[in-house]
């Protein structure tokens, strides 16, 4: 694989805006969508990344069973009040839409950095913007990208379960709003009725014991781009849990499917995703699969034998609170300060670097299947909300 420097399209801003990528420029004026370069792969390399994604998903599924069987949710910092609902949701298998593995790949080894299983973003750029870029600039090449088709197919599968339609909610940032808008569009293309609502607009009807929209209509299905660990720290936490099994059974049914086990409101992503979006998963995966070639040594109670490692807060987001230690010395971020929920200590991975950039490969899954990739580049080792998105292709 290689990083190829190119001349951006003269009107790239207008072109990516037309396909929904309105947040293409960072607050400091530099591009977030950076088409001054692309990453080129051989098809065999893409095959490896795809296979690695499927294998990590298999490991994560096995880990989910063990986390619950061994009662390890508390170790992951997950509140005890949520445990019955997580267990019931895991067993009743409500729909799970998507997720993104962040992988390190240097052309030789592939390593899991983390799993963004609950509220992954970077979707508009991965599914749409880079696809149109490929079509306009490199029509003879291909791209690891079946996101759009797979999302629509998944919604079509769910159509019978969700006759009343899906509410799409977000916290209000521009990126989240556009991501939700795109997902809403895929649901509509899948034949579902959809509506948007802001998280703060969701109401609780204490008489009907149901969540309602601004017109006080009962919400039966909610896609929320809003992390479960946030929801469970907010005033409606108990109400949210009361709509989930085992506390609530669904009061209305789809025409052909029985979803009684899914609760009185169907939440997408399901609450069991708290187990996978939690960075403690990395240590549990390593404990269960020591030496696995797709995993990095990772621990919850300190760095153990590691002298070069990354310390990540279990509930950290967008690179916040991460410290990089090399040969015992912090070279990025700081090691001082404590975090209530704790940290995971993960070995440093061999990363792809070129032109002073370090790349992380976000490998998408839809309905548990590999579905595409997006590349984020940083000047340091930590991917954060200022890391650029760079398109890719393969030949």
């Amino acid at each position, binding site marked *: 694989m290689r990083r190829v420097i190119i001349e951006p399209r003269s009107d790239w801003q207008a072109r990516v805006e037309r396909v929904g990528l309105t947040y293409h420029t960072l607050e400091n004026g530099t591009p977030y969508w950076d088409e001054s370069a692309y990453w080129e792969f051989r098809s065999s390399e893409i095959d490896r990344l795809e296979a690695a994604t499927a294998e990590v998903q298999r490991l994560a599924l096995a880990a989910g069973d063990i986390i619950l069987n061994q009662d390890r949710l508390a170790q992951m910092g997950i509140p005890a009040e949520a445990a019955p609902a997580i267990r019931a949701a895991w067993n009743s298998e409500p729909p799970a839409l998507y997720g993104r593995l962040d992988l390190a790949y240097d052309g030789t080894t592939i390593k899991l950095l983390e799993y963004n299983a609950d*509220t992954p973003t970077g979707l508009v750029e991965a599914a749409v913007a880079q696809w149109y870029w490929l079509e306009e600039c490199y029509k003879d090449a291909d791209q690891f990208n079946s996101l759009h088709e797979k999302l629509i197919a998944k919604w079509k599968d769910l159509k019978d379960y969700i006759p009343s339609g899906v509410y799409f909610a977000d916290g209000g940032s521009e990126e989240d709003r556009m991501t939700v808008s795109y997902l809403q569009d895929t649901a509509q293309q899948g034949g579902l009725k959809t509506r948007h609502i802001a998280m703060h607009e969701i109401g609780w009807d204490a008489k009907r014991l149901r969540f309602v929209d601004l017109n006080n209509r009962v919400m039966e299905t909610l896609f929320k*781009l809003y992390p479960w660990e946030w929801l469970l720290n*907010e005033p409606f936490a108990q109400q949210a849990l009361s709509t989930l099994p085992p506390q609530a059974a669904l009061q209305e049914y789809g025409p052909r499917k029985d979803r009684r086990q899914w609760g009185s409101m169907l939440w997408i992503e399901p609450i069991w995703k708290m187990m996978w979006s939690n960075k403690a998963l990395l240590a549990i995966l390593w404990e269960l699969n020591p030496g696995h070639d797709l995993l990095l040594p990772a621990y919850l109670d300190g760095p153990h034998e590691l002298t070069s490692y990354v310390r990540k807060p279990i509930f950290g987001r967008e690179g916040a609170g991460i410290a990089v230690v090399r040969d015992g010395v912090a070279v990025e971020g700081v090691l001082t300060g404590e975090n209530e929920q704790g940290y995971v200590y993960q070995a440093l991975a061999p990363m792809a670097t070129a032109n002073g950039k370090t790349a992380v490969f976000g490998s998408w899954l839809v309905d548990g299947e590999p579905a595409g990739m997006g590349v984020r580049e940083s000047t340091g080792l930590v991917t954060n909300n200022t890391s650029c998105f760079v398109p890719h292709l393969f030949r």
Partner: protein
Amino acid sequence: MTACRSQRRDCVDPQGRLLPDSTCSAGTYGSHYIYGGSSGGHVGDTVIGGSVSRGGFGGTGGGHGGAGGE
């Protein structure tokens, strides 16, 4: 919570049963206000006829406008 402040306000648990006002003031897990309802006035009474309460989600990540995706 957002509602008309001139209305009657009751602190309730997730099932709509009356709680001491101090429970909501303290932000106790799951407690919230509903507006415009009525009850017998005793802790544990079900508050009926109350309005829907809102604003119980969306306050994390910097409040409205916060990014929940990553």
